[in-house]
Protein backbone atom coordinates (compact mmCIF):
# COMPACT_ATOMS: atom_id res chain seq x y z
CA UNK A 1 0.00 0.00 0.00
CA UNK A 2 1.39 3.43 -0.91
CA UNK A 3 1.93 6.20 1.62
CA UNK A 4 -0.60 9.04 1.77
CA UNK A 5 0.42 11.82 -0.61
CA UNK A 6 0.89 15.47 0.36
CA UNK A 7 0.16 18.17 -2.16
CA UNK A 8 2.89 20.78 -2.55
CA UNK A 9 2.92 23.96 -4.53
CA UNK A 10 6.38 25.00 -5.65
CA UNK A 11 7.81 27.52 -8.06
CA UNK A 12 10.67 26.58 -10.35
CA UNK A 13 12.34 28.35 -13.28
CA UNK A 14 10.20 28.04 -16.41
CA UNK A 15 13.00 26.41 -18.43
CA UNK A 16 13.40 23.74 -15.80
CA UNK A 17 9.66 23.05 -15.72
CA UNK A 18 9.59 22.68 -19.51
CA UNK A 19 12.59 20.34 -19.51
CA UNK A 20 11.13 18.12 -16.77
CA UNK A 21 7.67 17.96 -18.38
CA UNK A 22 9.31 17.04 -21.68
CA UNK A 23 11.25 14.29 -19.97
CA UNK A 24 8.53 12.70 -17.79
CA UNK A 25 5.23 14.10 -19.06
CA UNK A 26 2.58 15.74 -16.89
CA UNK A 27 1.55 12.44 -15.24
CA UNK A 28 5.10 11.49 -14.27
CA UNK A 29 5.87 14.83 -12.64
CA UNK A 30 4.94 13.91 -9.06
CA UNK A 31 7.06 10.76 -9.08
CA UNK A 32 10.00 12.58 -10.62
CA UNK A 33 9.84 15.39 -8.06
CA UNK A 34 9.43 12.95 -5.16
CA UNK A 35 12.49 10.96 -6.28
CA UNK A 36 14.52 14.16 -6.68
CA UNK A 37 13.52 15.38 -3.20
CA UNK A 38 14.34 12.03 -1.61
CA UNK A 39 17.69 11.93 -3.39
CA UNK A 40 18.56 15.44 -2.25
CA UNK A 41 17.70 14.62 1.37
CA UNK A 42 19.88 11.50 1.17
CA UNK A 43 22.74 13.53 -0.26
CA UNK A 44 22.49 16.12 2.49
CA UNK A 45 22.46 13.35 5.09
CA UNK A 46 25.56 11.84 3.55
CA UNK A 47 27.29 15.22 3.63
CA UNK A 48 26.51 15.52 7.34
CA UNK A 49 27.82 12.01 7.96
CA UNK A 50 31.07 12.80 6.15
CA UNK A 51 31.54 15.86 8.37
CA UNK A 52 30.84 13.77 11.47
CA UNK A 53 33.39 11.15 10.37
CA UNK A 54 35.99 13.77 9.58
CA UNK A 55 35.58 15.27 13.06
CA UNK A 56 36.13 11.81 14.58
CA UNK A 57 38.96 10.36 12.49
CA UNK A 58 40.14 13.12 10.18
CA UNK A 59 39.78 13.30 6.41
CA UNK A 60 40.37 10.30 4.14
CA UNK A 61 43.97 9.98 2.94
CA UNK A 62 44.90 11.09 -0.56
CA UNK A 63 45.89 7.56 -1.49
CA UNK A 64 42.53 6.12 -0.33
CA UNK A 65 40.69 8.81 -2.27
CA UNK A 66 42.79 8.07 -5.36
CA UNK A 67 42.03 4.35 -5.02
CA UNK A 68 38.32 5.11 -4.60
CA UNK A 69 38.34 7.23 -7.79
CA UNK A 70 40.13 4.50 -9.67
CA UNK A 71 37.62 1.92 -8.47
CA UNK A 72 34.50 3.88 -9.35
CA UNK A 73 33.04 2.62 -12.66
CA UNK A 74 33.24 4.98 -15.63
CA UNK A 75 29.84 5.75 -17.15
Amino acid at each position, binding site marked *: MGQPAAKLSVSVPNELAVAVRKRVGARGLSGFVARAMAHEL*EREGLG*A*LLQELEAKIGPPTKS*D*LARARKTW*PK*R
Partner: protein
Amino acid sequence: MAEALILDSEALNALAFASDRAVLAKRASAILRLAHDKRALVRVPSAVLAEVCRGVRYDSAVNHLLNNPGIRVAELTRGAAQQAGHLLAKLKLSSAHAVDAFVVATALQFDTAVIATGDPDDIRRLAAPFRRIAIFAL
Protein backbone atom coordinates in the same frame (compact mmCIF):
# COMPACT_ATOMS: atom_id res chain seq x y z
CA MET B 1 18.19 3.14 -11.90
CA ALA B 2 21.04 5.15 -10.39
CA GLU B 3 24.56 4.44 -9.27
CA ALA B 4 25.00 3.02 -5.80
CA LEU B 5 27.58 2.30 -3.16
CA ILE B 6 26.77 -0.93 -1.32
CA LEU B 7 28.20 -1.43 2.16
CA ASP B 8 28.96 -4.92 3.43
CA SER B 9 29.27 -5.80 7.11
CA GLU B 10 32.92 -4.76 7.45
CA ALA B 11 32.25 -1.39 5.84
CA LEU B 12 29.20 -0.84 8.03
CA ASN B 13 31.12 -1.81 11.17
CA ALA B 14 34.03 0.45 10.25
CA LEU B 15 31.73 3.45 9.81
CA ALA B 16 29.64 2.69 12.90
CA PHE B 17 32.71 2.24 15.13
CA ALA B 18 34.91 4.75 13.34
CA SER B 19 36.98 5.79 16.36
CA ASP B 20 37.87 2.17 17.20
CA ARG B 21 38.55 1.21 13.57
CA ALA B 22 40.10 4.39 12.29
CA VAL B 23 42.16 2.87 9.46
CA LEU B 24 39.24 0.96 7.95
CA ALA B 25 36.87 3.85 8.65
CA LYS B 26 39.13 6.27 6.75
CA ARG B 27 39.14 3.93 3.76
CA ALA B 28 35.36 3.58 3.99
CA SER B 29 34.98 7.36 4.26
CA ALA B 30 37.04 7.77 1.05
CA ILE B 31 34.58 5.72 -1.00
CA LEU B 32 31.67 7.32 0.85
CA ARG B 33 32.97 10.76 -0.13
CA LEU B 34 33.19 9.67 -3.74
CA ALA B 35 29.60 8.38 -3.57
CA HIS B 36 28.59 11.83 -2.32
CA ASP B 37 30.49 13.56 -5.14
CA LYS B 38 28.96 11.23 -7.73
CA ARG B 39 25.47 11.71 -6.29
CA ALA B 40 25.26 7.95 -5.84
CA LEU B 41 22.86 6.22 -3.46
CA VAL B 42 24.31 4.43 -0.44
CA ARG B 43 22.64 1.18 0.52
CA VAL B 44 23.09 -1.52 3.16
CA PRO B 45 21.51 -4.85 2.20
CA SER B 46 19.22 -5.83 5.06
CA ALA B 47 20.89 -9.25 5.34
CA VAL B 48 24.13 -7.50 6.36
CA LEU B 49 22.45 -6.45 9.60
CA ALA B 50 22.35 -10.10 10.63
CA GLU B 51 26.16 -10.08 10.61
CA VAL B 52 26.53 -6.76 12.39
CA CYS B 53 23.78 -6.49 15.01
CA ARG B 54 24.94 -8.31 18.11
CA GLY B 55 22.87 -6.78 20.89
CA VAL B 56 22.01 -3.41 22.35
CA ARG B 57 25.61 -2.47 23.18
CA TYR B 58 26.65 -2.77 19.55
CA ASP B 59 23.39 -1.90 17.87
CA SER B 60 23.23 1.69 19.10
CA ALA B 61 26.25 2.68 16.98
CA VAL B 62 24.82 0.83 13.98
CA ASN B 63 21.42 2.43 14.49
CA HIS B 64 22.99 5.87 14.78
CA LEU B 65 24.57 5.32 11.37
CA LEU B 66 21.42 3.92 9.81
CA ASN B 67 19.32 6.79 11.18
CA ASN B 68 21.29 9.11 8.93
CA PRO B 69 19.09 9.74 5.87
CA GLY B 70 22.13 9.33 3.62
CA ILE B 71 22.40 5.59 4.26
CA ARG B 72 19.37 3.43 3.62
CA VAL B 73 18.73 -0.23 4.19
CA ALA B 74 17.85 -2.11 1.00
CA GLU B 75 15.14 -4.60 1.85
CA LEU B 76 15.69 -8.11 0.60
CA THR B 77 13.19 -8.68 -2.17
CA ARG B 78 12.06 -12.04 -3.45
CA GLY B 79 13.80 -11.39 -6.76
CA ALA B 80 17.11 -10.44 -5.13
CA ALA B 81 16.98 -13.45 -2.81
CA GLN B 82 16.41 -15.79 -5.73
CA GLN B 83 19.20 -14.14 -7.68
CA ALA B 84 21.51 -14.60 -4.69
CA GLY B 85 20.67 -18.30 -4.70
CA HIS B 86 21.50 -18.52 -8.39
CA LEU B 87 24.86 -16.80 -7.83
CA LEU B 88 25.73 -19.34 -5.13
CA ALA B 89 24.68 -22.23 -7.33
CA LYS B 90 26.78 -21.01 -10.25
CA LEU B 91 29.92 -21.11 -8.11
CA LYS B 92 28.84 -24.19 -6.15
CA LEU B 93 29.11 -22.20 -2.91
CA SER B 94 27.29 -23.16 0.27
CA SER B 95 24.77 -21.04 2.14
CA ALA B 96 27.64 -19.92 4.37
CA HIS B 97 28.21 -17.31 1.64
CA ALA B 98 24.55 -16.28 1.48
CA VAL B 99 25.09 -12.78 2.86
CA ASP B 100 27.86 -12.11 0.34
CA ALA B 101 25.49 -13.26 -2.40
CA PHE B 102 22.75 -10.94 -1.06
CA VAL B 103 25.26 -8.06 -1.21
CA VAL B 104 26.03 -8.77 -4.87
CA ALA B 105 22.35 -9.29 -5.71
CA THR B 106 21.58 -5.89 -4.14
CA ALA B 107 24.32 -4.28 -6.25
CA LEU B 108 22.73 -5.79 -9.36
CA GLN B 109 19.57 -3.78 -8.72
CA PHE B 110 21.41 -0.65 -9.88
CA ASP B 111 22.83 0.45 -13.22
CA THR B 112 26.32 0.49 -11.75
CA ALA B 113 27.49 -0.16 -8.22
CA VAL B 114 30.57 -0.22 -6.05
CA ILE B 115 30.68 -2.69 -3.19
CA ALA B 116 32.78 -1.61 -0.21
CA THR B 117 33.88 -4.79 1.48
CA GLY B 118 36.31 -6.25 3.95
CA ASP B 119 35.99 -9.60 2.20
CA PRO B 120 36.97 -8.78 -1.39
CA ASP B 121 37.89 -12.30 -2.50
CA ASP B 122 34.47 -13.90 -2.06
CA ILE B 123 32.56 -10.83 -3.23
CA ARG B 124 34.85 -10.55 -6.27
CA ARG B 125 34.17 -14.17 -7.23
CA LEU B 126 30.42 -13.69 -6.96
CA ALA B 127 30.48 -10.39 -8.86
CA ALA B 128 33.01 -11.49 -11.50
CA PRO B 129 30.47 -11.97 -14.34
CA PHE B 130 29.10 -8.44 -13.93
CA ARG B 131 31.15 -5.59 -15.38
CA ARG B 132 28.84 -3.01 -13.86
CA ILE B 133 29.93 -3.95 -10.34
CA ALA B 134 33.25 -2.71 -8.94
CA ILE B 135 34.82 -3.79 -5.67
CA PHE B 136 36.47 -1.44 -3.18
CA ALA B 137 38.49 -3.46 -0.67
CA LEU B 138 38.81 -1.87 2.76
